[in-house]
Every structure is written in structure tokens, then in C-alpha cells.
């Protein structure tokens, strides 16, 4: 628990909260990009301890929430065709257009819930007569392990393994949010886990272009309030800089070995974000060299395209335009037992955070 307990220290956290109250003179909107940070803020009751003038806006940083509906339907289609589909746990309850992966499993699909894509390669080795697909979603954080699974399968000569990849990148999403005409964001908390892989360099152009403070921040209560303090301080002092609150984990250059693995398997390409739409250069696509490991190329599923549920405002929630409680369906037609959209079902979704933790 080293690096955790000290970041849950009541006295230290209170001191920083007091400092935020002391220095806040103007109204500020700060967006935390990462869903893990949203949950940290709500779960620890930090939102109510902040000055009224400091409003936290919840960003699109939940990998489950931004995975397009099409892709969930594609995974379900594979499952129904007899493919063994492997997935992280929090994807399996997210509704597709007709059902979730969990419901497809109950109807007879061979769905495996795993902790690592390397386990999926092992499943492929154990089932040589079947095709095995890993549902490889996530931000930059999970890309190295997913890329590694492809390299591992290649090295082991496993040919019945592929990944259904939907990797999205944080900086293009931030840019899309800043370019939105309804954007009211004054500063960002950067996603600590993503920066642990990618480093902080790619945020510098955003700071300069949009004259906006970005503070790379961790996930514990003290991390979060320190990140908010650093952002508010910059805003009050009329500065815009890239700062790193999470220096115990995040280096400027990131994790070079992980980045090399990503670059071997993936290249930058256009990606669709659920609720937001297509953003150019916003994600990873599998390089043609590895197309045998690309489930989209391997199976005939590219025709699967479905519209979003029109009563779900996930897109506005993910862009920080609306808060969960401002949705007419929140807690009524949409709840964790019957979610209309991914932000309510994902363990990192903003709607789920508000539903489970906050006092409304």
C-alpha cells in the first residue's frame, strides 16, 4: 500500500482543500479526463468539499463508455458464430443494440472474462480448433498489453487468435472537446495512468495552442485535491502550463518500452467514439503487417452498423456538456440494472459514479 496510504491522509487532504478555498477568487470549470478520477472524486465525497466556484466537469475518459455500439454488436456477432470471445469484466454488461455480451453468454456463447490479453492467447492454444478473439478496448493504458498479446501469439505460432481492437487516444479527444462550440473548460486534470505509458510531452502543444492549464494527476484523494489546487492556482495567476502532480508514477518520456510495443503493432488512425462520433487520428488501428490478428479483417463483420439509442445523452455527458443528473432518464428509465448507455453501466462511467455514490 506504499504510495496509497499517504495519499489518503485526512490532515494533508484537508490542508490542500483549505488552500483551494483560500486561493479561489473566480469561477472555474475543470475537466478531469479520466473516469477513474471521476469515481475518485465522487466516491470520496470531494466534490462537496470544493468551493462552489470550482466546478468539476467529467470527461470522456472511460474506455468502456467510449467503445462504439457497433463494436459491441460485432463482439456479440462473433460470440454467436461460435468464436470464443475474451474480455475484461466491465465490458460484458454494456448494452449493445439488442443485448449485452453477458446476455449473449447466457444464450450459449463462450465468453471468457480475463484479467490479461495474454491469458486469451493461452485460451487460443488450449482450443486449437476454435477461433479466439480478445475484445481489446481502452485508452493508451491497455494498448501495450494488447499489442504484446499479438506479438506473443505470432512468436508462439498461434494462428487462431485475433483482437477486436478499439483503442482511443486522449489528446485528440481533448482537442475535440476544446474545439466544441459549447466548451466551457478552463483547465484539465490529465489522466495519470495514460501518462504513465505515454509521458507528458504530447500535452505541451495543447497547452500552447489553447492557452489552457493541464495538470497530470493521480487517483487518490490527496492526488486529486493537489491536482485541482495546482490547476486553480494557475488559473488564478493567469498562467497556463503543463504540470505533473503524479511525478511518482509519470515521467516526461513515459514508458519507452511500452510505447515501442504499441508502435510495433498499431498505427494512428481514425476512430469512432461512442456518443461523440469519428475523430481523425484519435486511435490505434492494427498495422497491415498484423492483419491476421485483426478480428475485423479476419471475420466478415465490417457491415455491422447500428444507431445509438436516441434517448441517451451519453455524448453530451462524455463531452462534459451535461452532468448525469441533468439527464431526464437518469435513475429512472436508465439505471445500473437497465442501462440505456455505457456511462451508467461502466465501473468508470460518470452516470454510474453519480448513481452509486453521490447524494442527489
Amino acid at each position, binding site marked *: 500500500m506504499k504510495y496509497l496510504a499517504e495519499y489518503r491522509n485526512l490532515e494533508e*487532504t484537508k490542508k490542500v482543500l483549505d488552500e483551494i478555498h483560500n486561493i479561489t477568487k473566480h469561477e472555474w470549470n475543470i475537466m478531469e479526463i479520466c473516469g477513474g478520477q471521476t469515481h475518485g472524486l465522487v466516491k470520496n*465525497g470531494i466534490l462537496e468539499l470544493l468551493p462552489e466556484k470550482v466546478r468539476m466537469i467529467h470527461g470522456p475518459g472511460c474506455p468502456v463508455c467510449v467503445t462504439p455500439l457497433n463494436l459491441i454488436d460485432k463482439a456479440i456477432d462473433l460470440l454467436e458464430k461460435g468464436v470464443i470471445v475474451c474480455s*475484461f469484466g466491465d465490458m*460484458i454488461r454494456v448494452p449493445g443494440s439488442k443485448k449485452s455480451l453477458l446476455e449473449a453468454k447466457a444464450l450459449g456463447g463462450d465468453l471468457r472474462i480475463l484479467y490479461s490479453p495474454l491469458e486469451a492467447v493461452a485460451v487460443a492454444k488450449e482450443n486449437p480448433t476454435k477461433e479466439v478473439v480478445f475484445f481489446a478496448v481502452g485508452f493508451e*493504458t491497455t494498448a501495450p498489453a494488447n499489442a504484446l498479446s499479438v506479438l506473443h501469439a505470432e512468436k508462439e505460432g498461434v494462428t487462431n487468435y485475433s483482437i477486436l481492437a478499439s483503442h482511443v487516444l486522449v489528446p485528440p479527444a481533448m482537442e475535440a472537446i476544446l474545439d466544441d462550440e459549447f466548451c466551457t473548460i478552463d483547465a484539465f486534470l490529465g489522466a495519470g495512468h495514460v501518462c504513465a505509458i505515454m509521458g507528458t510531452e504530447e500535452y505541451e502543444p495543447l497547452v500552447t495552442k489553447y492557452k489552457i492549464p493541464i495538470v497530470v494527476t493521480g487517483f487518490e*484523494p490527496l492526488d486529486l485535491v493537489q491536482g485541482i489546487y495546482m490547476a486553480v492556482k494557475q488559473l488564478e495567476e493567469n498562467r497556463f502550463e503543463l504540470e505533473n502532480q503524479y511525478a511518482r508514477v509519470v515521467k516526461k518520456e513515459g514508458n519507452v518500452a511500452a510505447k515501442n510495443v504499441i508502435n510495433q503493432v498499431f498505427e494512428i488512425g481514425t476512430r469512432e467514439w461512442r456518443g461523440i462520433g469519428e475523430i481523425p487520428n484519435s486511435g490505434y488501428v492494427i498495422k497491415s503487417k498484423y492483419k491476421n490478428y485483426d478480428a475485423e479483417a479476419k471475420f466478415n463483420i465490417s457491415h455491422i452498423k447500428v444507431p445509438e439509442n436516441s434517448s441517451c445523452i451519453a455524448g453530451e455527458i462524455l463531452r462534459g456538456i451535461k452532468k448525469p443528473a441533468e439527464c431526464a432518464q437518469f435513475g429512472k428509465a436508465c439505471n445500473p440494472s437497465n442501462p440505456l448507455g455505457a456511462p451508467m453501466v461502466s465501473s468508470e462511467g460518470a452516470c454510474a459514479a453519480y448513481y452509486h455514490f453521490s*447524494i442527489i
Partner: protein
Amino acid sequence: MEKIVDIGFETIHLGHGSGGELTRNLLDKIIFKTFSNPFLDQKHDGSIVEFNEKIAISTDSFVITPIFFKGGDIGSLAVHGTVNDVAMCGAIPKYLSLAFIIEEGLKVSDFIKIVQSIKKAADESGVLIITGDTKVVERGKGDKIFINTTGFGEMHSKANISIQNILENDVIIVNSFIAQHGMAIMSDREGLEFETTIKSDSTNLNYLVKDLLDEFGNNIKMFRDPTRGGLGTVLHEIANDISKGVFIKETDIPIEKQVAAACEMLGLDPLYVANEGVFLTIVSKEIASEVLQLMRNHSKGKNAAIIGFVTNNHPKKVVMESSIGGKRIVSPLVGEQLPRIC
């Protein structure tokens, strides 16, 4: 315990569930031999027992993978689970029924291990196995072994467990560290190796419950064991049942460091992780510290702690004060907790 040898077969097959000679063989050589007592030895369709007072009955089915785990197995769990459910009613468990559904192909050595574990847990809990059943299903139609137990217990003469008795400012006490059983199962099931081994807390709680009732009688207003769904779900159920609020403090909830770290690593909230050796009780504020002391002096309550109280504010909601002084709702668990992406 007597060693069971030379039974003449190594795996359970469909014939052992036929009701014929092979079934008799299985029962005589393993079940009756292990659980021998005057009621069971009659080998009748059922048993006739005597109760002087009101009785409490509880039944539960045990379906768990893996069937052997650190700190227990499906057999001891099937005893503890039902013994504890009877105890939570304010009763003293006395008898258990025991029904097996066995999947064809189960190793007899594993079956014997489970049966002997049941015997040990039953002896330690002071209950007799008085009737039972054995069925065998085809391979692929079960998950090695399923066990159903039904417990019968005599109500404690002083017990008056009723949610109607719960008032504002009553105190909520738990007897032990939470989330151990769920994390032990998960680490065994997923082959996760944590730095320190986490063991299931599966145990019988009936003696501690009896001591509390002997000492504090009807001032004990509720017992509840938060098994599946964990502490968070049970607290939520209580708030709903009594139409009052429940207020707890995160820092007061007893949790072992290694269990907390394992939950952290897997992205699980310990409030929703299953327990087997944990119960909570609600008592009036006046006797709370004495109750706590009695629990701490008992082997099953050494780590007991007051975790919160009942309030008329926020009815039907559980509010938790976080470690940094913020407040948030504790909602019931929806579905299973699942490992997260990042």
C-alpha cells in the same frame, strides 16, 4: 477422524445415484460412517427430533468454484453458511439436513475430503446431520458438487430480534475483518498470487451469537451476516427494511491490509465482496461498548468494531463518510463485481 479406505471405487459415476446397491455403498461406506449419530443411524427416510420452544429453520445451497480454497472448502462452507443463518435468527443451531448433487466423475477422494470437512465443521458448531440426500448427475450437468443444507435451531429464550425495535442512534457493530472470503475465492479461482496468502474467513458464528444473547438478551435488535453482496448490500437492505438511514465511517470498517491491497489491485470495492465469518449486530447506544468488549474477548470477534449508527436523516439510504471527510451514498450491488479494464 477415522480414515476411509478400501471402498472399491475411485470416481463417482451415475450408478452411485441410482438408489440401488451402489448408492447404498456410497452412503454406508462414506456418509453414515462419517456422520453416525442416533438419528441418522436409524437410516429412515427422515428423523424425528424434539424441540421445546420455537424453532428457526434456514436453508441454503452451495455452488462454488473452486471447491477447495484457502481457508476452507465447499463442505465446511455448507455447514458454516447454514449454521450462521440459523444463528442470525437468534436461535441455537442443533440439526442439519445435508443434500449432495454430485457430477459424474468426481474423485471419491475429493468427496471423502468434503464429507470429512462437513463432519469437522458440524462437530465444531455443535450440530448433528440428521437427514440427507445424494443425487448424481451426468458429466457436464453439474459443477463437480453442489450441496444443500437446511438448519434447525431452537430460539434463544431471550432473543427478540426484530427490525421494529431499531431506533435512531442505535449502533452498528461488525465482529471481524470484511471481504476475506471473496478475495480468497477470487485469488484461488483466477490463480492470482498475492504477496501474502489471503484465507477465507469461513467459520461458525453461533457461539458468539449465543454469548451475546445470554448477556444482552432482547437488547440485541438485529443480527445479519453479509455473505454474497457484502457489507454494503446488507446495510442497504437494513436501511430499506427499517425505513431509516444508516451512517457509517469508512475508516472504522475493519479490513486487513492485504485484503484491501488485493481489492485495490483488482478494482473491487471491499464493501461488496463476500464474507463468511462476518456478522453485524445493531444494539442501543447504551450497551454498545459492552457488546463490543464481549465480542473482542471472543475468538470470533477479536477485531470487532463499531462502524456506524442508525439515523432519521436520509431514510432508506446508507451514507458513508470517506477517509477524507467527504460523504457518499453506499448503493446496493448490481450484478457481480467485475474486474476492470484499467
